[in-house]
């Protein structure tokens, strides 16, 4: 009877600790055997089929624990000693099986499937390439990577971070490609995290950023498993957080944001072309509003003869100075976009009518802005859309504003100065000891084969040597 008391005590402790939560289910099979699980995260079916069926006929047997251990119809069972662990397993959807006569207990995986199925990527869609994307399910995410890289050297190191959430954080890399030093740096940074909750990879990003401050992202954030695998195979390191479909890939350099996983699936000529287009778009989107202000208010002599007259006539009715005009319109557009992203798709149509008609047409007709400003802001925002990485787009937006502010006071000179600051800033960044502007600065020949110009796959036998010492892709290299 004393033994029987122990199970009772355990259940009581658990119920007290969880505050008599309504989803706690306790089933006592007999005096000696009972199990407990949380209804909300566990599958009743699984418990009935794979646990209950196998244990219900056990009565008082001498070595019940051993017997159970080898006879439960479930592939994933663990024997636990530490009673404190029980809460983590319960919350993770495990069923805990207690035997009164035993100090140890058994946890059986009976997770309810609370995940959406693997779907097409919404934020980084491709035309030609695999359609799958990461989901919130950690193990299926890992599966998507393991499925692609069937290498024994693929390492998935797991940590649990967050006092309350106890989220699984996985560091994924290939042992003989990734630099050991970088893996250690990341692990150390992750171990130093002291926070109660990790709900998304966004929570750990700030811990992984190096001390250098920059608006430009120093890691790629993607939901595409193929991009993740491409990066890992090049010697980068991916960090995955449970319940987040976005994976962080480190280190990222500037040109990574001009690349697209699709580049490697298409013919190299079209990939090269699209990268050149992206580079031009990058310059346009970051410079156009500033250049417009500079030309309109300081350096009119640079405008071609034909254009200057139409520009001057267009502006003749507008009461605001040019920079006000641009800033008003840029800010209005940012608001519009912010609203468009957050608004449910049902109200999207009315948004676009208001945005396109009222802002574009009516503002010009009412002489609040000149037509050319609408063109400038429109081309700026269109060029921005060629990039998929949100952090990179945000960096562009901020720098664009910096360029605008420096031009308001000094014209073209301001653009030159801000441009210099931007280049110096970028050149000084070194995420995980990789220069941000490599392979341009410092010049790196091995990186040039997969840069703005992409060489065909059968000419790229080597990995870029700034990421790894092990550059051989094949035996030939």
């Amino acid at each position, binding site marked *: 009877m004393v033994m029987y008391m122990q199970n009772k005590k355990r259940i009581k402790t658990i119920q007290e600790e969880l505050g008599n939560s309504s989803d706690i289910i306790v089933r006592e099979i007999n005096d000696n055997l009972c199990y407990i699980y949380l209804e909300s995260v566990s599958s009743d079916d699984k418990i009935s089929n794979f646990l209950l069926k196998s244990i219900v006929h056990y009565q008082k047997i001498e070595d019940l624990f051993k017997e159970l251990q080898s006879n439960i119809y479930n592939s994933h069972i663990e024997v636990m000693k530490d009673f404190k662990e029980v809460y983590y397993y319960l919350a993770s959807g495990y069923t805990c099986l207690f035997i009164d006569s035993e100090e140890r207990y058994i946890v059986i995986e009976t997770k309810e499937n609370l995940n959406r199925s693997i779907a097409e990527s919404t934020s980084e869609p491709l035309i030609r390439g695999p359609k799958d994307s990461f989901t919130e399910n950690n193990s299926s995410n890992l599966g998507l990577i393991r499925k692609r890289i069937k290498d024994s050297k693929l390492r998935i190191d797991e940590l649990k971070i967050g006092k309350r959430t106890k989220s699984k954080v996985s560091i994924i890399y290939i042992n003989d490609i990734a630099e050991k030093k970088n893996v250690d740096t990341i692990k150390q940074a992750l171990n130093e995290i002291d926070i109660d909750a990790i709900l998304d990879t966004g929570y750990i990003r700030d811990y992984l950023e190096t001390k250098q401050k920059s608006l430009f992202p120093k890691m790629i954030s993607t939901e595409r498993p193929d991009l993740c695998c491409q990066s890992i195979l090049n010697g980068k390191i991916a960090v995955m957080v449970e319940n987040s479909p976005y994976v962080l890939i480190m280190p990222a350099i500037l040109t990574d944001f001009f690349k697209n996983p699709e580049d490697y699936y298409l013919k190299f000529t079209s990939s090269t072309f699209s990268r050149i287009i992206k580079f031009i778009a990058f310059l346009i989107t970051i410079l156009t509003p500033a250049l417009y202000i500079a030309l309109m208010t300081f350096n009119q002599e640079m405008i071609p003869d*034909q254009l200057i007259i139409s520009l001057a006539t267009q502006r003749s009715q507008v009461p605001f100075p040019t920079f006000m005009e641009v800033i008003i319109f840029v800010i209005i557009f940012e608001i519009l976009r912010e609203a468009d992203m957050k608004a449910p798709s049902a109200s999207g149509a009315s948004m676009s009518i208001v945005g396109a008609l009222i802002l574009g047409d009516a503002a010009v007709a009412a002489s609040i802005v000149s037509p050319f400003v609408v063109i400038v802001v429109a081309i700026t925002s269109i060029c921005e859309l060629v990039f998929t990485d949100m952090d990179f787009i945000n960096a562009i937006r901020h720098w664009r504003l910096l360029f605008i502010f420096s031009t308001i006071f000094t014209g073209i000179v301001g653009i030159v100065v801000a441009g210099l600051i931007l280049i110096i800033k970028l050149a000084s960044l070194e995420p995980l000891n990789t220069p941000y502007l490599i392979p341009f600065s410092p010049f790196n020949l091995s990186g040039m084969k997969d840069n703005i110009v992409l060489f065909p796959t059968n000419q790229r036998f080597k990995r870029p040597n700034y990421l790894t010492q092990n550059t051989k892709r094949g035996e030939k290299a």
Partner: protein
Amino acid sequence: MKRFCILFLILFLTGCWNYQELNEYAIVTGMSVDYKEGKYEISFLIANGNKTEQEQAKTSLITGEGETIYNAIKDISLASPKELYISHLSVVIISEEVARDGISNLLDYLLREPQSHQNFYLLISKDTKASNILSILSPLSDYPSQNIASNISNTAKLQGKISDASFNLFMEKYLSTGYEPIMNSVIIIGDIKEGQSADSQDKTKQDAYTKLDTLALFQKDKFVTWATQEESIGIDLILGEIENFYFNVPCENSFAVTVSNDYEVKYKLEKNKIIVQAKAEGTLREVDCKINLENEKDIQKLEKAAAAEMRKYMVDAIQLAKNNRTDIFGFGSKYYKKYPNQYHQISDWNNYFVTLPIEIETDFQYTRKGSLEQSLEREEQ
């Protein structure tokens, strides 16, 4: 933070130096220089006037008077509600009277003015006031000065009668030793008064329009004389600045119009003689005689006639220059580069130029006959 503050301060301390909104400028695209009662009368053609109904800019002409060029321009700004902006000047038109007296003060102003871009055209108005030229509206382009400027740049290489004489080229010749400048001229055809009204633009047949005319010869900054059409071709041929030119080659009783599409000129300088060697290739464009175009000998005869015709133009041009004692061909400059010592012994190059024998050798070859193999008159037989 400290660094950020310093950066921010630097921006604000500039005080928006040189800041000027574009619509506060009156964009000057044309300028004309006349005399009026012994004073300069300068007109500016301003391109960004009020918007018309079709959202097009309306041009306006503002005139000012003054003892000097600058005074007259300041007089204009009294009448302009916006700051005058001459960076986009495309033509400067000078009246014959002003040009005869010399334009060195105008050139000085145009070079000295910091806003001046120096890539405009200089023109002389022939038989009319310079400001009239600016006031003739053309339906083919938005404003009169643009009309003239694009006319020059489009036809200079194709016509052979006018020269691509931009301000820079004029100054280059004006400032170099042994080189006298030339200038294009412009005339008005039709009724000036009618042509100035905007209504005339709507008519299919315009009341008046501007047209490029023959070249004007200068000695230093002073206008000397006009060249005729033929002499203009001759001048351009010797200068070699053209690619295409057309001329009528005598053929039996009539003409065979020939267009040259490849032209090259070489100069051979000797101490007391200059040889000009011109070589051209061309196409027949209009044949009005019974020549047998399939016969090699007839073609050769025509080629010889063409070469002789070219030579005639060039001889005429040289005679004109010699008569007016102005070396518009820059022989002096070339002579100076080859024989600097001899050049220094010559006190006045233009005097020497008059006596300098200049030999001309011309060569012409037909490469194509156009789409017709034979002349039509011969086909008829």
